[in-house]
């Protein structure tokens, strides 16, 4: 799907000069240009963050605060290195998409942000993830507190086998929320665009809902603890197109209040919902590296790195 969309857009519409870069690399070309960088990359379109890492970053045209700042983040599972020295910002109150082929470390990176990898025996993180002036990865930082302030929504909807109300209230309750619980539950469900569908059956089991509703319930559950950042690991990959659309609309709305980081395999989805995109890629040794980071518009229409363009146009991945 993604392949067709982008290929058609770029190659069969000659009147539409999408970008000078794509003109120079027609899809039929067999011999690749110099590895990683396209010829005109140095002409001011983008700059290297660190030439050694071969990752490029587009210039931001808008002023945004940084919610998370990654510096040389590497992650390991035992002796296996999953991601290598990633450096990038996560802009505040924006949707940032992590894209890349399977096994490039997107989910691993996402799980670094709220220390979810701590739960996996043998997993460890190196580098620095700055969050409000502190390094998240520091063992002295309480992982439980990190997870409360950086919520997460998983690939497969996983509501607790309890009532809808309890699903939402649980996080607030264990974190010592002393306000009006009914109000919080209603608020969270409203913001997750689920209230109208479930307001009369809050006692029903969360498992009795449909897949899309379950995922929105999980989002409500994440919102209820009032986090600053919400991580979403392919939140719509198990849903049908209509439910996917609802989740995407929801992400756009939530981005006004929260910083959202979303992992997705669906390039159109990344294009639709995200403000910024990071493209990750694993090399021969299966270690994930950041290739390119920038505003989604730029990444999709004017990628600097050859590999990004290849991925976006569906040449691999």
């Amino acid at each position, binding site marked *: 799907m993604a392949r067709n969309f982008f290929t058609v857009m770029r190659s069969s519409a000659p009147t539409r000069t999408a970008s000078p870069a794509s003109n120079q690399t027609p899809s039929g070309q067999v011999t690749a240009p110099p590895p990683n960088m396209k010829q005109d990359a140095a002409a001011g379109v983008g700059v290297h963050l660190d030439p050694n890492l071969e990752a490029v970053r587009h210039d931001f045209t808008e002023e945004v605060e940084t919610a998370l700042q990654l510096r040389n983040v590497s992650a390991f599972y035992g002796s296996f290195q999953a991601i290598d020295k990633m450096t990038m910002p996560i802009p505040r109150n924006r949707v940032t998409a992590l894209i890349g082929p399977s096994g490039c470390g997107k989910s691993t990176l996402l799980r670094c942000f709220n220390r979810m990898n701590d739960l996996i025996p043998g997993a460890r993180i190196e580098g620095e993830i700055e969050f409000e002036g502190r390094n998240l990865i520091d063992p002295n930082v309480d992982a439980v*507190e990190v997870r409360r302030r950086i919520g997460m929504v998983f690939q497969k909807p996983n509501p607790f086998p309890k009532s809808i109300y309890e699903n939402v209230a649980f996080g607030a309750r264990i974190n010592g929320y002393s306000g009006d619980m009914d109000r919080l539950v209603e608020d969270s469900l409203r913001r997750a665009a689920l209230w109208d569908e479930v307001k009369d059956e809050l006692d029903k089991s969360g498992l009795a809902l449909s897949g899309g509703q379950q995922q929105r319930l999980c989002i409500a559950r994440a919102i209820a*603890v009032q986090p600053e950042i919400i991580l979403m690991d392919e939140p719509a990959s198990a849903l049908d197109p209509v439910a996917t659309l609802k989740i995407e609309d929801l992400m756009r709305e939530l981005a006004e209040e929260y910083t959202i980081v979303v992992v997705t395999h669906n390039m159109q989805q990344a294009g639709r919902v995200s403000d910024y995109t990071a493209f990750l890629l694993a090399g021969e040794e299966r270690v994930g590296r950041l290739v390119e980071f920038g505003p989604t518009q730029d990444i999709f229409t004017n990628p600097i790195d050859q590999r990004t363009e290849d991925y976006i146009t569906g040449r691999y991945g």
Partner: protein
Amino acid sequence: MSAATPTAGITPYAPRIRARRGLSVGFMVIALLAITASMLMLGALIVEIAVDGAARLFTDGSATVQEVRGETLIDLPTPENMNWLAWAMPVAILLPFLGLRVVRSLIADIPALAERAIGFATTLPVAVFVHILYVRFESAYYIEYAKAIGVDGASGNIFQLFAEASGFQFVRLIVAGLILPLGIIAAGWFWSNRLRRPSLLLPAIATAAWVVYLFLDPFFLSSYPSRLPAQAGLFSAITGTLYMMVITAAVAFPLGVGAAIYLEEYARRNWFSRMIQVNISNLAGVPSIIYGLLGLQVFVRVLEFERSVLAGACTMALLVMPIIIVSAQEALRTVPPSMREAAYAVGATRWQVIRFHVLPYAFGGMLTGNILAMSRAIGETAPLIAIGALTFIAFLADSPTDDFTVMPIQVFNWVTRPQSGFHEIAASGIIVLMLVLLVMNAAAIVMRQRTRTDW
């Protein structure tokens, strides 16, 4: 009208066709024979028991009043009188089930049977049960009354008198030919629908209880051991078993579940936890007599619990601990990792994840394992003999430090006696033990089904 005429005979839908049930004629004949036979047999059985049996079984008919050292003993009926029941009962119970498919096809054609009437028919066993209970107590009073007015032995009870007056054969025919078929048909009708099935539970339990009651004499459950088989009972053994099981569960369940939680949720996967794991599996295979010797040394001698309920319960707790740990671990493993992740992701601590999510979801499985472990403990004899549980306890244990006995030890003791009367009550004791085990295992299965979560 005229417009409707062409289609008058042709409805838009095909006429309802009852799907032919794929039953061969031969099978149908066999099944019908089986039903008829079982009905007759059950009918005969009920009448026999209710009319003849009531006289024989229920204290007055064959009860012989003996005077032993100034004490009046009532010699209760012996199992020999009931030998014919042993084969008639299973056959009578099994045959209707073999013919159930036919019954179902039959009742599908009788929509006129009102639901209420059928419900009434199925509760017939309850009525019979209650009535027999009444007759039994009444005849007990009757014998007292007869003694009081100086009549030697009772020659009959009200039920028997009624049967004789109204014609024995007639009652038998009525019961066999009318009530039982209705009951079976009704049972089949109830069974045919998943939603209606639970309503069979009460009549089934009542019938089972009734059958048990016929075999079992309440005095057997409520008397202490005696040197006379006719007077000996299981009372102290049953209470001893209950007492010991409660303490065993109280000791073994928290310890076992705690160990399982540690091993599954907290322990790192290293050589130490692997060693513990392997040894738990090993302990599950150690012969129970070894636990008895361990209990003898540790609890009876070193800790000086003496031959008490507490010592027995602690030994049993050790014995069943591996079973509880392994089943609790299994239960914990069935909780999907996504549930744990979901709880962690909203800022739960490890203990909160376990307390509010893992444990509640796994609790049913843990309880099931616990019940199965308890049913193993109930049947264990060797370790208790090793720690010296007594076989003749004519009192109830007041505190955990008192002497005690349990059902298998009591049965063991009766079997080793030379008198044949003791052998018979040993058989009765085994039936009681088996019924207890059956009920516990059934409870475990029901619990497992009910607490299962479909993720």
